[in-house]
């Protein structure tokens, strides 16, 4: 079953894996922004996670520990952001941008000596017998554990934000920190935990790049994926399932356009290479059109100090 030389089963299987880094980072940032914090340092946290994960995986020989290492590295870097914005009340936009530059620089320094090493492979989770089934095999059963984890996280975050007490508190802090404070919630502490969570998710997303998608370390390996993740959060109206759709659309169309080029479709390459950006934005904007005002958390980007 091929369309113009492109096998849709392989295409879907590929896009699910190639969307993981953006999906993980965007999910983390969704929680951060729902708590009212705008952390533009996603790219920096991803790249430091990519390096941290790579180093841990190479040194321990365990890819699973590598992902944990990536998450820890991302979370540690995000705590710098948390310290500056939540304790010293620095401007969030400027601090986030600085965090990206800092992360890129530190990873470049720390990565000296790790060029050209191959990390232990992250292999598919389920046995070949399942992965070899027609159609459903490659799409449903043929992935490594991180792909399943990223989808599970989407569901968990949707559930937590929508239907649990924790989610309600996070949203309250993001919508009106004054009100949340008046109710006795520790606004800055809650935000700090959300920031650390976002850092861990971005770090894991970065680790997926250096451990699974491009199994190697090179400087600046994430090459702007963090910025895509940030954009997807906004266009997905801060909703986890839409983030998933956005990440899969972006990843899918990126993979599709490369496949179309190989297959020699008649579509000019210029249009193909801008398609991922255009179509992702278009679809997500149309989805959120016609509803009540775009749904940005009301206190997004505002610092809070209990003295007021």
């Amino acid at each position, binding site marked *: 079953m091929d369309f113009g030389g492109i096998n849709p089963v392989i295409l879907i299987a590929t896009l699910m894996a190639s969307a993981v880094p953006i999906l993980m980072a965007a999910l983390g940032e969704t929680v951060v922004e729902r708590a009212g914090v705008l952390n533009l340092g996603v790219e920096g946290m991803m790249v430091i996670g990519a390096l941290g994960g790579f180093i841990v995986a190479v040194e321990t020989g365990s890819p699973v520990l590598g992902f944990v290492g990536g998450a820890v590295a991302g979370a540690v870097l995000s705590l710098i952001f948390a310290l500056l914005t939540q304790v010293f009340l620095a401007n969030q936009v400027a601090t986030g941008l600085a965090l990206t530059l800092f992360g890129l620089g530190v990873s470049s320094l720390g990565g000296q000596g790790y060029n050209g090493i191959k990390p232990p492979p992250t292999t598919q989770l389920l046995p070949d017998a399942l992965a070899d089934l027609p159609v459903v095999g490659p799409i449903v059963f043929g992935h490594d554990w991180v792909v399943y984890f990223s989808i599970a996280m989407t569901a968990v975050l949707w559930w937590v934000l929508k239907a649990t007490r924790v989610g309600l508190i996070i949203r309250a802090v993001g919508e009106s920190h004054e009100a949340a404070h008046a109710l006795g919630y520790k606004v800055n502490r809650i935000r700090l935990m959300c920031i650390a969570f976002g850092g861990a998710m971005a770090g894991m997303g970065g680790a997926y790049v250096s451990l699974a998608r491009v199994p*190697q370390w090179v400087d600046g390996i994430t090459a702007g994926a963090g910025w895509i993740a940030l954009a997807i959060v906004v266009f997905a109206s801060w909703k986890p399932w839409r983030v998933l759709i956005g990440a899969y659309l972006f990843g899918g169309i990126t993979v599709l356009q490369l496949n179309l080029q190989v*297959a*020699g479709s008649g579509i000019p390459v210029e249009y193909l290479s801008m398609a991922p950006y255009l179509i992702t934005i278009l679809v997500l904007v149309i989805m959120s059109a016609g509803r009540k005002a775009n749904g940005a958390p009301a206190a997004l980007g505002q610092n809070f100090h209990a003295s007021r």
Partner: protein
Amino acid sequence: MKRRNLLATAAMGLLLASGGAFAQGMDKVKACFVYVGPIGDGGWTFQHHQGALAVQEAYGDKVEIQYQENVPEGADAERVLTQMALGGCNIIFTTSFGYMDPTNAVAAKFPDVKFEHATGFKREHPNVSTYNARFYEGRAIQGHIAGKMTKSNKIGYIGSFPIPEVVMGINSYYLHAKKANPNVELSVVWAFTWFDPAKEADAAKALIDQGVDVIASHTDSTAPLAEAAKTNGAVIGFGQASDMAEYKDGPRVSSIIDNWAPYYVKRVGALLDGTYAQQDAWEGIAGGEVEIGEITAAVPAEVKAEAEALRDAIAAGTYHPFTGPINKQDGSPWLAEGATAPDGDLLGMNFYVEGIVGDIPQ
């Protein structure tokens, strides 16, 4: 200084000025490098930085090296170049095609600073030189190996940007693959980036998914080889810009190595001893700027011997990779029987040769 000495010096100066060739030398040169990627990319920028380090080693205290990584092509480059020129750089090497216009624009404002632009063709001011390497010579050898090694008769090429430099490489690769194996088909994927490991890996994956089993890349990282390595030997590739020797026991069967060190050492040396002059340098295998990395045991001995013979013929000047008859993609003649391509045609190359499917993005 005594008056007599002063006069003597003045006379000497006049003599030197009229001598022309004895232009003023310099005691110390600050050589600056602008890189499009990180020096740890393991490819293009890494090799340029090796060249910069070679300059430092060759002249020690007499040179000071400064460099900036990850400089975007376009307006940002102009800012960086201006800063470097103001910061006392005597010679600035801009190491990517996209720096062409910024280099010439900044060169106009700093006539005393020498600018050296890699892979471009614009020398609008007397202080702008260009340099390049004849990578298409290396592509010919890769094409030959690709044609002999492919089992599916499908070979791939990951292009960065549709510039003459890359188109030249694609044509050379295809022509020699076709010569080695008349049934070969070439798929070209444009990544529209020099450095984005994830996207380069995706491009390699797209090629592999559609049955391509030999991949050449014109982007800067080792990601395509890493992707090919996942196939456990079914797909082979080549090191690009740097030897990428870490993939020798895997998919890498040979490589093109850019060796900029001799050129950088020569140019900075010329500035030091005062023999510097504007030029347009374009060396290949013969000049040592393009090296062919070791052909591994994965390639059968006779193919290896043929590839090495091809390399030696190019180095000796007895064979030109673009020797007619060659038609353009639309069937119109380009080179007649026995004719070789003039450099001007190559540097402005914006067409595929006959047999390649698809269009070059404009």
